[in-house]
């Protein structure tokens, strides 16, 4: 009797502490995230500005999201960034694997590749603005290795390639962070596995294919998800380098323009809700796809090692998501 009573008191106290500690963050979360989010959904059904009267218009804003040519164009534009993100993840994986084996001056190279991620996104925009200017950095370098200026394209003016130019800056910036995430996961693979593999005569490709990739597949999945959802919300490169002009306006740039220059808050909110839905759909498709691809591995038991990696990956991903914005 006595013991169980003490147990109850302890439980009660535990509960009190839990409530006391969670109520403040929970309150802040609801006040600053969920409440504005619900309000935004409400706004998306109105024709309204920041100040002044509002008018309920039903689904008109949503109809506009699907019929306005400039908004539809941005969705096609994000395909560029999706292709870019696949290239980005592949390159990051490649470099991480190289660094996983012994390389001379390893830390220096890692530093070089990771460095762009540390630079402020606005600064990167300005760097690349001059980088792509006619006759400036890129053209000079290309001329030095034998190209003729006459034959070089206008990197930002030509609408056939200017989006690739912008995608490149984004790949350049985020590849390092992806690489570090991969590298972290690879480091935690048990060293004895490599040793055993090399004793069995496995070459580098086989080591990668059968040891590294299966051990880090969770983080690869996560990186791909984050890169693709991130490509839908690409904002800084087009906003800073071309200010979204000349056919480079991504979804976020157009949304920003509609929300702030034209003050069509309802339409911009509808765009935001639409983006959320698209991201959810993309996520479920990926989920289904990866479940299919890794169906054999899923059946196997998850070792504590893998679980720990996942935790790490989740944390890193959250950080990346924050930084990626």
């Amino acid at each position, binding site marked *: 009797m006595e013991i169980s009573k003490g147990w109850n008191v302890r439980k009660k106290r535990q509960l009190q502490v839990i409530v006391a500690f969670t109520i403040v963050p929970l309150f802040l979360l609801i006040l*600053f*995230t*969920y*409440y*504005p*989010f619900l*309000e*935004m959904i409400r*706004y998306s059904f109105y024709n309204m*500005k*920041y*100040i*002044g*009267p509002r008018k309920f218009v039903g689904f008109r804003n949503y109809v506009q999201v699907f019929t306005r040519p400039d908004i539809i164009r941005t969705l096609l534009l994000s395909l560029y960034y999706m292709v870019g993100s696949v290239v980005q993840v592949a390159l990051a994986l490649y470099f991480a694997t190289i660094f996983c084996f012994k390389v001379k001056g390893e830390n220096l190279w890692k530093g070089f590749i990771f460095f762009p991620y540390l630079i402020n996104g606005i600064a990167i925009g300005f760097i690349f*603005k*001059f980088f*792509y*200017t*006619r006759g*400036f950095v890129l053209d000079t370098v290309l001329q030095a290795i034998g190209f003729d200026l006459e034959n070089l394209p*206008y990197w*930002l*003016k030509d609408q056939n390639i*200017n989006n690739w130019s912008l995608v490149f800056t984004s790949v350049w910036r985020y590849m390092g962070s992806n690489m570090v995430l991969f590298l972290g996961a690879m480091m935690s693979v048990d060293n004895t596995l490599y040793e055993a593999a090399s004793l069995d005569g496995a070459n580098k490709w086989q080591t990668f294919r059968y040891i590294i990739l299966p051990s880090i597949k969770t983080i690869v999945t*996560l990186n791909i*998800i*984050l890169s693709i*959802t991130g490509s839908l*919300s690409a904002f800084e490169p087009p906003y800073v380098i*071309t*200010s*979204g*002009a*000349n*056919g480079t306006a991504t979804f976020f740039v157009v*949304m920003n*323009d*509609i*929300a702030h*220059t*034209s*003050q*069509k808050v309802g339409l*911009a*909110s509808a765009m*935001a809700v639409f*983006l*959320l839905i698209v*991201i*959810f759909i993309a*996520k479920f498709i990926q*989920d289904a796809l990866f479940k299919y691809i890794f169906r054999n591995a899923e059946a196997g038991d*998850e070792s504590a090692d893998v679980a720990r990696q*996942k935790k790490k990956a*989740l944390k890193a*991903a*959250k950080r990346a*998501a*924050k930084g990626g*914005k």
Partner: protein
Amino acid sequence: MKRRKLLTLGLTSIMLIGALAGCGGGNASGGTEAAPSGEPAAESTEAAAGSTGLTYASVVLGETGTDLKATIKVLNHRTDMLQDNYPGTSWKDYLDTFHEMYPGIEVDIEGITDYASDSLLRLQGGDWGDIMMIPAIDSSQYADYFLPMGTLEEVSSLVRFTANSQYGGIVYGIPSTANAQGVLYNKKVFETAGITELPKTGEEFIKDLKLIKEKTDAIPLYTNYAAGWTMGAWDAYIGGSATGDTAYMNQKLAHTANPFADPGNGTGAYNIYKVLYDSVAEGLTEDDYTTTDWEGCKGMINRGEIGTMVLGSWAYSQMQAAGDHPEDIGYMSFPITVNGKQYASAGPDYAFAINKDSSDDNKLASMIFIKWMTEKSGFSYNEAGIPIATDDNKYPDLYAAFEGIDYVADDVALEGEEDLMSLLNADSELNFNSGGDKKVQAIVEHAANKDMSFDDIMNDWNAKWTDAQELNGVKILY
């Protein structure tokens, strides 16, 4: 594990979306608008003159109140003029000269750095002194705060640009200075190209640009496309410069059917933007418009590497300061002619107004000071502005090329239609004079890529404008 993934995703997306929602949510409650104070529109001259019979016209400098002893406080935005190292004429210099004529009137100047917003707070607080520069309040509220200075008819015979500081035919403020909008050019480049007479129409302008391209190494017209906001400068000419009509911009444009169609006589917004389209289409602009450099262009025009740039008069001094050839920088009216006459959009800067609750002595001293600032101080000239007093014809160098050109200051919007232009601007997404840079940039893009004719662009604008007019139930009057 699946749930965790989902949670991460959910949080990530909500963070993304939350960023936007935050913007919307924060401002949603600001729906209250100051109700118009419902003053009768036309008051008698007596009411306008206030209880003491003091008006702007009644003060004669050097005669009225020479033995008056008073200390007045002036709230002003020119904090730079309070500094000892101000390169032009500082407040101290002005006051020293003022004291020669009025030794008894002490003037205490308070400079406010963020004048546009802080002055509104001070105005509401009431304790702001005797003179202030009228901040952005509805003109219907002028009478609640400021001393009437006389009827519009009376004051405007003495002072230019009073349209914005009046309400119901009563003037409440005297502009400190005024500016006109034109086009920057490099005199030396024009000379080398053999241009002896400044262009008066769009066609002449294009011809001159071609001459510059042929005979010099300079870029004929630098668009400043990449900076974006610099392209918005083109909107400044569609009112006064393009029509010569003071009522066009704030009163007629909203009620005009298809305002961007070609009027056929070389005027109107159509012929403003056509200059841009044609220059780009004929290769008279920089090679790669997407990488133009705003900071760099200042030195380039100063050195004679750029022929012309379309920017407001504020840019003139910056271009002069950017290199060793300030004397080469010129400013001319926008090349457009309305019925054989050239006009330039112009507008007043901040206007001086007097506290209606000040003592009678301070009111008189304030009126004397304002009149002195307007007529005797040379303030507007020193600040490279258009003279304010109507009998003052001493224009600064900036406007040397504006001789014979009429300055057109836009009238304020009609009562009850104060919000109309901003509604149409937002609904049409053309945003004239309010950040609509994208549409002007698009002109450059279409001209360079040759994928849309100029008439098609203007038809598109007309369609958007008409939609916005219908959405807001605007009556077509013109």
